């Protein structure tokens, strides 16, 4: 294909203009009248107001008049837009247009940076509200061209760097003027995210929960600063306070992050506008509940190349579904009445913007909503009523199209910004596409022309064989060179409304003949269209909760269940009850007895089976997006409750092993860790529903090798020895006491989340679960607690607990230990599997925990090991994974045993629960069956079937020429206490 026509892109008659009060030295002062009337057009004044056959009058970059009976003033330039449509130009609110992201400077230093680099600003370098990108803004002509082609007229741009990123700039995409005119607002919004700045190596925050805690503290400090309580200047807080009333736009990575961001905002009365990620459909109810306005990207997952089955096997159903379901996201948002704007953010190529939007519309997304999400809604978000519509007085930012802008067959001809013309596809170029019969040299060729505007191109075939040819056209003239047993040159005119072409041809020998081409009857076209539409039957796989393999399509309902004639392990004084019936009703254990009978409810025959309370894991790291905020030696401000991840398959695997409750603990990177989440493993529920109601408050402390960075090559943070660990505690508790004194005095005080948390500990409102190994450190922490008059609740791991079991019993602290781990590091050299038994015998409440997603799915076996090692009775052994951890977690009034009135968290086993041969048949939480062996088998089949279907669909895409991506295997992250993750920047 050869383009003869140049796209005259920035075809504008106006020169770059200077502000009118600027001196002129290049000639005489000229004032141009800029009055243009667009007549006979269909005009979308707003998505709701469409006027046919109307006039748009533009003056000085603004809409002067619009309507059917606009009087055209004299001297106005008139452009006839018969059969053409005018829309307001689009607005993109999430952009880095014209603002280069600073490069991260690789650091040669091997030491970790704990402090901020800047002076006079907030203590954390990732809080940069003072960033005003106007100083570094460079209007990007290349990007402008792409955006104009896609129909955009305005972008709100900002520096995409940091947690608080500073303000945005509202820029009209007008290449024909200067920043003085096209920057509409130099402080248009404030941007935030969960990503760190690349401009500083300051380690904190190293996790998402750290970022959330940091934001909270920033808001508290900003308030404290605003009241004039800070002795120093803080330029970051100062600007943050100044920008308080700007719209706050928060970029998030997935639907879980969207809810997390919203939660932080709500706590401070801020409603963020949330930049989503395109996966909102996975948890649409949670998205809706945020009440936030969203900015949604449409970078749909491309199909995977599944032709190699060994590779294809590696792709999870979760990822396969994303390809299938992504295009339905906008429809889902619309149906659920979520207000959202669209953004080009994340799109690798702007060319995909319309393609993807058309796809979403094919999937049912409403065109009117589409237009609103690109015009009026973003205008409203940014608070600018003269954008996104063509009412009188608004900016003359509009596109001229050949038809429906969301239709693949339509063309955007022009995109006017601030009353300046930008030609995209010259509307004077005829549309000559179609299938023709070309007659030349006594032969009949098939000649088809496809494409848009100047990009129209022709291909020639003879009896289905492609003939090499070159094609070009300009105005009404067409030129063809074809190579069929020698070259023939054709030149001719397009006549008769493009249905016929004719002209003269010169064959190889230079003999002149004539040629003609006539358009084939439209019948075939219609047929083709039919084929195409039947071809494109849209199948969207249903969304499950979570939207992964083994997810639930509907959540289990609480039912009344009667389990008959079963062996009941009560974990109470009653011990084991043979041949007993247990009635579960309204989510509670309603009755335990013999020969119970209730009509019309689900009955399960428990003959030969065992029923136990659900297993409780005191120490787990599943179902979380983060484990450690290890960048400070205390991180009491962070909480795992912020980052619970309900999509983790380990939740399902844990219930398949009878575990129903887990304390998700912060890691052990620092002496004072973060707060815990105590969750029920209600697979399919959201994070909020998994976390216990009125959950007891817990915090992780840690001692020993991990906190003193023993195996770190660049450990420089205090403490580096067990001696220092003690001082960290003494220091923090001393400060907390001082904080309390000030707080109680009635004087103003700076609210400090970390100190508030420590105060809760001192006041017995928050419990410590402390990671501990050797006897000296255990003894030390007991003494520190006693000095400050509180009690340690639990020592977790506590592998040398057996050496100080008497001291533990005296202090009243519980022990939650591994059954038999040892020898993996120096401080566990004396760890013994008899630990649980010795502590128990000394009167300590003992639990067996996992600290491992694999161990946590067979804690029954780990409990059984205490029978082997140390001779625990089976009843006591079983308590170590049920009622004992419940006691340690202060939830023994709700769960941990089979007792009338307690929550119906029970497990049905096919065998003695501590037998190596035991298998879980059903796991019931609050009377709802969350795991069932039979259903599990059905789910396996369903996964196989659905993958098969999607693989076929992907193969079809690939064979049809679609671009595919290489298979990606989901990285399975195995979180442990000492997992150090890195928050991305």
């Amino acid at each position, binding site marked *: 294909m050869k383009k003869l026509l140049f796209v005259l892109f920035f075809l504008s008659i106006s020169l770059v203009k200077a502000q009118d009060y600027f001196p002129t030295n290049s000639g005489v002062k000229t004032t141009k009248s800029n009055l243009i009337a667009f007549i006979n057009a269909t005009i979308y004044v707003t998505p709701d107001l469409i006027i046919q056959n109307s006039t748009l009058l533009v003056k000085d970059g603004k809409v002067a008049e619009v309507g059917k009976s606009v009087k055209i003033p004299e001297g106005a330039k008139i452009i006839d837009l018969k059969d053409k449509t005018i829309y307001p130009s689009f607005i993109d609110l999430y952009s880095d247009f014209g603002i280069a992201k600073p490069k991260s400077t690789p650091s040669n230093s091997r030491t970790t940076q704990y402090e901020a680099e800047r002076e006079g600003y907030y203590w954390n370098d990732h809080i940069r509200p003072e960033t005003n990108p106007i100083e570094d803004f460079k209007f990007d002509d290349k990007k402008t061209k792409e955006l104009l082609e896609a129909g955009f007229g305005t972008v709100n741009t900002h520096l995409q760097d940091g947690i608080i990123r500073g303000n945005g700039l509202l820029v009209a995409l007008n290449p024909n003027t200067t920043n003085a005119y096209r920057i509409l607002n130099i402080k248009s919004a404030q941007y935030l995210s969960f990503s760190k700045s690349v401009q500083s190596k300051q380690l904190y925050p190293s996790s998402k929960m750290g970022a959330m805690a940091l934001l909270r503290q920033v808001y508290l400090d900003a308030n404290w600063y605003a009241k004039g309580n800070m002795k120093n200047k803080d330029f970051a807080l100062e600007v943050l306070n100044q920008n308080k009333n700007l719209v706050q736009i928060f970029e998030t990575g997935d639907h879980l992050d969207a809810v997390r961001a919203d939660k932080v905002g709500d706590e401070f009365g801020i409603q963020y506008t949330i930049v989503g990620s395109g996966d909102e459909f996975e948890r649409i109810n949670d998205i809706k509940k945020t009440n936030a306005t969203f900015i949604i990207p449409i970078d749909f997952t491309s199909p995977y190349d599944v032709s190699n089955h060994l590779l294809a096997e590696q792709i999870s159903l979760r990822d396969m579904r994303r390809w299938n379901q992504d295009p339905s996201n906008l429809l889902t948002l619309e149906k659920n009445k979520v207000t959202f704007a669209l953004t080009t953010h994340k799109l690798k190529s702007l060319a995909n913007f319309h393609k993807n939007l058309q796809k979403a519309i094919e999937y049912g997304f409403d065109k009117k909503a589409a237009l609103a999400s690109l015009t009026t809604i973003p205008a409203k978000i940014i608070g600018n009523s003269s954008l996104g519509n063509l009412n009188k007085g608004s900016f003359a930012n509009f596109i001229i199209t050949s038809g429906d802008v969301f239709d693949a067959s339509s063309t955007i001809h022009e995109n006017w910004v601030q009353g300046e013309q930008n030609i995209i596809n010259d509307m004077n170029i005829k549309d000559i596409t179609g299938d023709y019969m070309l007659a030349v040299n006594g032969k009949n060729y098939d000649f088809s022309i496809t494409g848009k505007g100047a990009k129209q191109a022709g291909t020639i075939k003879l009896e289905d064989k492609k003939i090499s040819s070159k094609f070009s056209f300009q105005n009404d003239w067409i030129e063809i060179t074809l190579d069929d047993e020698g070259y023939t040159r054709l030149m001719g005119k397009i006549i008769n409304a493009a249905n016929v072409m004719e002209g003269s041809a010169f064959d190889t020998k230079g003999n002149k003949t004539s040629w003609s081409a006539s358009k084939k009857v439209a019948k075939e076209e219609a047929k083709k269209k039919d084929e195409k539409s039947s071809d494109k039957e849209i199948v969207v796989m249903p969304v499950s909760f979570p939207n992964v393999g083994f997810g639930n399509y509907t959540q289990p309902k609480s039912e009344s269940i009667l389990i008959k004639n079963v062996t009941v392990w009560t974990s109470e004084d009653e011990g084991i009850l043979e041949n007993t019936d247990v009635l579960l009703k309204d989510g509670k254990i309603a009755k335990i007895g013999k020969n119970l009978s209730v009509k019309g409810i689900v009955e399960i025959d428990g003959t030969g089976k065992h029923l136990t309370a659900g297993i409780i894991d005191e120490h787990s790291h599943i179902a979380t997006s983060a484990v450690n905020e290890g960048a400070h030696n205390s991180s009491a401000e962070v909480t795992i409750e912020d980052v619970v991840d309900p999509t983790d398959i*380990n939740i399902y695997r844990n219930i398949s092993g009878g575990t129903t409750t887990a304390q998700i603990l912060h890691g052990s990177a620092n002496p004072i860790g973060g707060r815990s989440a105590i969750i029920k493993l209600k697979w399919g529920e959201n994070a909020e529903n998994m976390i216990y109601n009125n959950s007891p408050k817990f915090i992780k402390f840690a001692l020993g090798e991990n906190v003193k960075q023993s195996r770190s090559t660049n450990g420089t943070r205090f403490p580096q020895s067990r001696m220092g660990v003690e001082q960290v505690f003494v220091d923090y508790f001393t400060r907390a006491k001082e904080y309390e004194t000030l707080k109680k005095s009635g004087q103003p005080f700076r609210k400090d989340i970390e100190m508030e948390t420590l105060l809760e500990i001192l006041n017995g409102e928050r419990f410590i679960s402390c990671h501990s190994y050797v006897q000296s450190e255990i003894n030390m922490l007991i003494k520190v607690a006693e000095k400050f008059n509180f009690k340690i609740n639990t020592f977790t791991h506590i592998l040398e607990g057996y050496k100080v079991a008497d001291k533990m019993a005296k202090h009243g602290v519980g022990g939650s230990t591994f059954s038999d781990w040892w020898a993996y590091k120096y401080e566990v050299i004396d760890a013994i599997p008899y630990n649980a038994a010795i502590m128990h015998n000394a009167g300590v409440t003992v639990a067996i925990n996992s600290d491992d997603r694999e161990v946590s799915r067979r804690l029954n076996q780990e409990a059984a090991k205490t029978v082997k090692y140390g001779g625990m009775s089976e009843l006591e052994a079983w308590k170590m994974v049920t009622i004992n951890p419940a006691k340690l977690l202060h939830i023994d009034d709700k769960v941990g045993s089979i007792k009338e009135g307690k929550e119906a968290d029970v497990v049905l086993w096919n065998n003695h629960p501590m037998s190596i041969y035991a298998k879980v048949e059903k796991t019931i939480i609050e009377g709802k069956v969350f795991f069932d062996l039979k259903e599990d088998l059905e789910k396996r089949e369903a996964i196989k079937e659905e993958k098969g279907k999607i693989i076929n669909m992907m193969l079809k895409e690939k064979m049809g020429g679609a671009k595919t991506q290489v298979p990606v295997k989901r990285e399975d992250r195995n979180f442990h206490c000492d997992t150090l993750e890195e928050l991305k920047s």
Partner: protein
Amino acid sequence: MMKNIFKTLLIFAFVGNILAQQTPASKQITAFSIEGATAHLGNGKIIENSLIMFADGKITFVGSAMTKIARMGTTIKAEGKHIYPGFIALDATLGLVEIDAVKASDDESEIGIMNPHVRSLIAYNAESKLVESMRPNGVLMAQITPKGGAISGTSSIVQLDAWNFEDASIKTDDAIHLNWPGSFTSGRWWLGEDPALKPNSEYPKNIDKINSFLTDAKHYNSVKSDIKHLPLAATKGLFDGSQKLYIHVNGQKEITDAINISKELGIKNLVIVRGEGAEKVTDLLISNNIPVILSRPHRNPNSEDDAYDDTYTIAKNLIEKGVLVGIGMEGQMDRMNTRNLPFYAGTFAAFGVEKEKAVQMITGDAAKILGIDAFAGTLEVGKDATLFISDGDALDMRTNQISDAYIQGRKISLETHQTTLWKRYSNKFKAE
């Protein structure tokens, strides 16, 4: 509870001298006759109310206690108890590392790619605290395997009650261990690399390297050479059939390549270790008589969509098709977990493997895989008297209570560093 305490006290009383722990038992002088127990022979068979006798380190009688035959030496009444052949841990690293996180205690791998000449046996610490902790669980023999590189080195098989590596060894330099490359590769996310799993373009090249090394080795060992080449010379046993080649490999394509290439080279005895995907190439395995050593079942399934019990049911799936299957120790914290070997077998049994077959996996079949079945692995006359008495089912945590254990007829101590501490602190609190 009381009963259990009583039981443990009995064990104490029986073992007697606490100081005796760790000291290897001396040569069997008196014969033993164990009477009345359920004998699990290790070949799938059970004898209820059995009589097992052994003298001079060898089993002399295996039969029913009803048999009218003179009891030799000391008679142990073991009614209600169970006798098993000593459990055998495959692909273990006991004695090569003491504390995982302490580099100075780590001797499990060498630098370099092709290290068949590197021998695990000489680094084997017979006095490791981990080694002694195996015995109270019935694990009495282990294949000590070097790690790292493409060819990690040469393993040896030891019994777990010895003064040094020489008297520990029951088969020296039994096998060479090869880590087969993967045909797929993915970036390391923690270094910011693309985690996409892609065909490994280096795979053919990596195979070539192995192939050409082994081809050189074959040639070297078939002609007389004046200049000694230690790595090539170390592989001699692969070609004369005296040593086995253990190929640590995952993936059906990789397993197929590994078997075909090794066979072409004339390597006679192959064992597949890890073997994810082996269930898809069982025909190839069976027709070539190649056993598979599965990884420990107590690990998570490979992918998100895998069934929760995928790592539990794999043994059944292979055994059903006729593959000889053992259990290997490779994985996280493998040394301290090696004592859980009986419970791995138990877990396989819970998910479809017949119980005696599960016992066989870690006794008779393990010995067969290792090539020591002529003298170990089962309770049969003439074999080493390496066996133990358990109060109950030794595959179950609750009943794996071992009262007596013998290695080559020597009655070994069941004390460990851990039992010492247990008693020391139990007594401390009792006294207070």
